C-alpha cells in the first residue's frame, strides 16, 4: 500500500513539475509542443500573419475579437488565444482554394469595413486625410496580396504522385 501511495505521489509531483515549470527551456519546449505543425498549414501562413496582424503593415488592427468572428463565420470556432495562433488555427488543414476562399472573404469584409470608416473620418476631418489614405493604401496592398495568394494557390493533393523535375 505504501509503495502504491509513494508511486502515486511521485507521479503527481512529476505532473506538477511538467505543467508548472518556470524553467525557460521547459516553457519553450511546451510552446513548441502547442505550435501548429508547419505541414498542417498553407505555405503562405507566416507571411499572411505578418501582414495581417501587424497594424503598421496592415493599416488596421485585427484583434482577437476580429479573428474570433472570422472563425465563427467560416465555421471553425477557434478558441481565443494569441492572435498568431488563432489565425493559424483558422488556416489549419486548409488544403485547397475552396477552403481558403471563405476565410479570405471574411477577412476582406472586415478590411472593407475599416476602409469605409476611414473614408467617413476623412470626410468629417479633412486634416486627417493623409493619415487615413495611408491606412487605406496599406489595406489595399494587403487585399492585393491575399488576392494574388488565392489565385496562385496550388492544390497539392495528398494522393498526388511525387513531382519529378528530371523529365
Amino acid at each position, binding site marked *: 500500500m505504501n509503495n502504491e501511495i509513494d508511486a502515486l505521489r511521485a507521479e503527481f509531483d512529476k505532473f506538477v513539475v511538467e505543467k508548472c515549470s518556470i524553467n525557460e527551456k521547459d516553457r519553450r519546449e511546451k510552446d513548441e509542443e502547442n505550435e501548429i505543425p508547419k505541414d498542417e498549414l498553407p505555405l503562405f501562413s507566416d507571411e499572411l500573419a505578418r501582414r495581417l*496582424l*501587424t*497594424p*503598421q*503593415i496592415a493599416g*488596421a*488592427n485585427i*484583434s*482577437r*475579437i*476580429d479573428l474570433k468572428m472570422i472563425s465563427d463565420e467560416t465555421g471553425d470556432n477557434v478558441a481565443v488565444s494569441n492572435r498568431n495562433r488563432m489565425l493559424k488555427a483558422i488556416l489549419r488543414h486548409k488544403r485547397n482554394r475552396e477552403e481558403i476562399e471563405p476565410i479570405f472573404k471574411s477577412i476582406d469584409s472586415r478590411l472593407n469595413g*475599416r476602409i469605409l*470608416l*476611414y473614408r467617413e*473620418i476623412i470626410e*468629417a*476631418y479633412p*486634416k*486627417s486625410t493623409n*493619415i*487615413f489614405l495611408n*491606412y487605406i493604401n496599406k489595406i489595399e496592398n494587403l487585399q492585393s496580396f491575399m488576392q494574388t495568394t488565392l489565385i496562385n494557390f496550388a492544390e497539392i493533393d495528398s494522393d498526388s504522385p511525387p513531382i519529378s523535375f528530371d523529365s
Partner: protein
Amino acid sequence: MNNILLTRANFYSFLSRLLLFELDLKTLKELRENKNIFELFPNLQTWDSWQNLSDNELLNSHINPDFTNISILHLVPYESFYTREDAMIESGGANLVTNFYHEFGFKVEFNEARVVAPDHIGIELAFMSLLINGENNALINNDIKTAEKILNTQKQFMETHLINWISLYLINFKFEARTPLYYDLGETALAFIFEDYNYINIIIDGKN
C-alpha cells in the same frame, strides 16, 4: 484663464483618466451626477443598467469587466504596437515620446500609472493636457512667444505621435466595447482628438 484652453486641457485630462484606469466609485458618481453626461455619452440614456443599477453593481458587473476586457485582455493601448513593424511595445528609453516629455519635464510614474511604456494612450493624452495648461500659463504671464512655441509643440506631438495611431486603437475600442459607456467613449475620444487637431491647425494658420 482662457476658457477654450481650460476646456481643452480638462477634456484631455478627462479622457486620459477614463482610458488609463478602470472607473472607481468616486469617478462613477461624478459621471452620474454630471448634467451634461449624455452629450458626451448619448447611449447611456437608453442603457437600463445605467438608469437602474446601484453604483457598485454597475461598476462590478458591467463597467469594470468591460474595461478590463477591451483595455487589458484584447486590445493594446500603446503607440509602439501600432507603429513598429514588429508590433512590439517599446518599454525602454528608446521610446520616442520621451523626447517630447523630457523637454517639458513630464515624467511617467510607471507604477502609479500602471503602465509598461510611456506611450500608453492615457499618458499621451495627459501630456497634451500638460501642454495646453503650459500654453495657458504662458499667456497669463504675457509670454506670447512661449505660448506659441507650446502650441506648435502640441501640433508636432499630435502629428508625430497621437494621431498616427490613436484611431487604430479607438476604432476597435468602440466596436469591441460591451457597455454604452465605453462604446461612446471610443467615439467621443476619436471625434475630440481630430476636432482638436483641426482647431490647432486653424489657430496656427491664422497666426501665420
